[in-house]
């Protein structure tokens, strides 16, 4: 009974086009954000921060990025790992070579560089579609992975090929404890998610979705394919690049190109399939699911009191991911986000069946 929109009349088009037209949704989201900023730090421990919250938030940004490209604009990409690597190494090099740069600028620069590379590898999308494009983005993935492993300048001639970041500071505050990292990442995530939501519900979003649903018709109503596709590649790569830099700086601390290999690309793709293609909320749900499932699997043998090698667990993880992907595609191609929407719809009508 609590979830009702009775009596909430929209009197302007502005109100009807708000992000959350229903008041309860609006309050729920405000409450959730407030909870994340204020209440979580009261009880969260190191494990919850570093293994759950921080990875979920950073990967959500990457998932939002890929969702813009694949879910909204319909351009399948298997190169997310590569674009994350561009962000991470761009941030590393800027922080290394201009140590005084504000850390926010470092991350923006990471997004910007990933954006340029994304546009470059997005150019083929003007001529090719679907599976062909998927293979083209794989080219980006393997090339970038190779470039960061081989070009010595990118890693500042580190003999091991691995790079490490130093102290991260924002306005005089050192971001070192998991709690501080969490707050910082959370703030980035909220801002970026809000921006993405604004884009997809406005002109840009309609342009991308038009391209996805029927590119010929989109062109005939005056949408330039060049503009629509490359802007999707640009925005998407920006998000993915920022996520890559955050991942390298605040999750890993030191990393090798392997951290951004093709499996990372698949991981992000699975997030949006499970979470929901073409949904910002789904990007969060998918990222949570993909991060939590292995944690759960790793705990399971202990809970059940059976011994299992890590190799076996990782194989089971593969199997489960594969099975879940197929299951979702068969049962609910729009992912967790759609399940959420259906649940809300039911709740709206409750206690009546319809």
């Amino acid at each position, binding site marked *: 009974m609590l979830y009702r929109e009775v009596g909430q009349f929209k009197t302007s088009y502005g109100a009807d086009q708000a992000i959350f037209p229903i008041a309860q949704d609006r309050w729920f989201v405000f409450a959730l954000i407030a909870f994340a900023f204020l209440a979580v730090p009261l009880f969260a421990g190191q494990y919850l921060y570093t293994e759950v919250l921080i990875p979920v938030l950073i990967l959500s940004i990457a998932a939002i990025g890929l969702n813009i490209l694949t879910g909204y604009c319909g351009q399948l990409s298997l190169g997310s790992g590569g674009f994350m690597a561009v962000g991470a190494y761009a941030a590393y090099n800027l922080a290394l070579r201009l140590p005084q740069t504000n850390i926010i600028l470092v991350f923006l620069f990471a997004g910007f560089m990933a954006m340029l590379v994304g546009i470059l590898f997005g150019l083929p999308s003007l001529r090719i579609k679907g599976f062909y494009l998927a293979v083209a983005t794989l080219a980006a993935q393997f090339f970038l992975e190779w470039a960061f492993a081989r070009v010595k300048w990118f890693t500042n001639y580190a003999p091991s090929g691995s790079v490490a970041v130093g102290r991260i500071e924002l306005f005089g505050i050192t971001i070192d404890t998991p709690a501080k990292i969490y707050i910082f990442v959370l703030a980035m995530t909220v801002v970026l998610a809000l*921006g993405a939501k604004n884009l997809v519900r406005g*002109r840009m979003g*309609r342009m991308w979705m038009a391209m996805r649903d029927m590119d010929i018709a989109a062109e005939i109503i005056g949408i330039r394919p060049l503009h629509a596709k490359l802007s999707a590649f640009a925005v998407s790569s920006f998000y993915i690049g920022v996520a890559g830099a955050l991942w390298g700086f605040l999750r890993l601390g030191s990393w090798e190109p392997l951290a951004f290999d093709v499996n990372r690309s698949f991981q992000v793709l699975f997030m949006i399939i499970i979470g929901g293609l073409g949904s910002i909320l789904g990007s969060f749900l998918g990222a949570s699911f993909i991060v939590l499932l292995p944690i759960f699997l790793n705990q399971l043998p202990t809970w059940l009191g059976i011994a299992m090698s890590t190799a076996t667990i990782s194989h089971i993880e593969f199997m489960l991911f594969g099975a879940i992907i197929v299951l979702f595609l068969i049962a609910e191609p729009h992912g967790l986000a759609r399940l959420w929407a259906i649940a809300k719809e039911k709740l709206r009508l409750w206690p009546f069946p319809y």
Partner: protein
Amino acid sequence: MRAPSGRDIAAGEALLAVENVSLAFGGVKAISDVSFDIRRGEIRAIIGPNGAGKTSLLNVINGFYQPQRGRITFKGRPRSAMRPYEAALGGIARTFQNVALFKGMTALDNIMAGRALKMRRGFFWQLLWIGPALAEEIEQRRRVEEIIDFLKIQHVRKIQVGKLPYGLQKRVELGRALAMEPDLLLLDEPMAGMNLEEKEDMSRFILDVNAYYGTTIALIEHDMGVVMDLSDRVLVLDHGVKIADGVPAEVQSNQAVIDAYLGLSH
């Protein structure tokens, strides 16, 4: 809604002129040496048996196909090869034989997408959803609502178009084309697959668009009754060749047209 002007073209003068246009796919000739014009403010029908080249002709006009030979003059300016979005920019809108809506989007978003050309606010304003971008979004929404009212599709606004019945989809598609405020509206079989009632509704909308907004319309249609009632002039194609052109009564009594429809050998 402001009636779009065809720039300097007065009513009754040629808005679009097609001269000696030929189009071939490999060895197959789709259109051979066709010339005709569309005058500002009229409803122009293009008819002919299946495979006559009608849709190909529309595709040439809105830039989807490039003709091998011939010249097209739109708004008094001769036109070289162009892409479909350039045609849209110039004021040509279009609906399709098989509904070509954006299936994953709501009816409202589909029609809003038709306003893409009219929206100018930059990327960063959109990112923030404040100021000019918000104002623009709301202003465009107001205009789109006028079209929604006009077409009587208020009740399906927020429904994904893929879930709508065929007749309503056709109407939403017309709405999307109208949202572009075109000078020239191309309708490819707007009534295909409709029942009598839906056809009457659609005919009324077409006449209203023509009367209220002053939009010039070219339509392909198989229902001769509709064609004769709606159109000012009729162009008849057969096997890619123009066989007749004139007012409905003239065309109806033309022997070549009757032969083409009865399948007489040439």
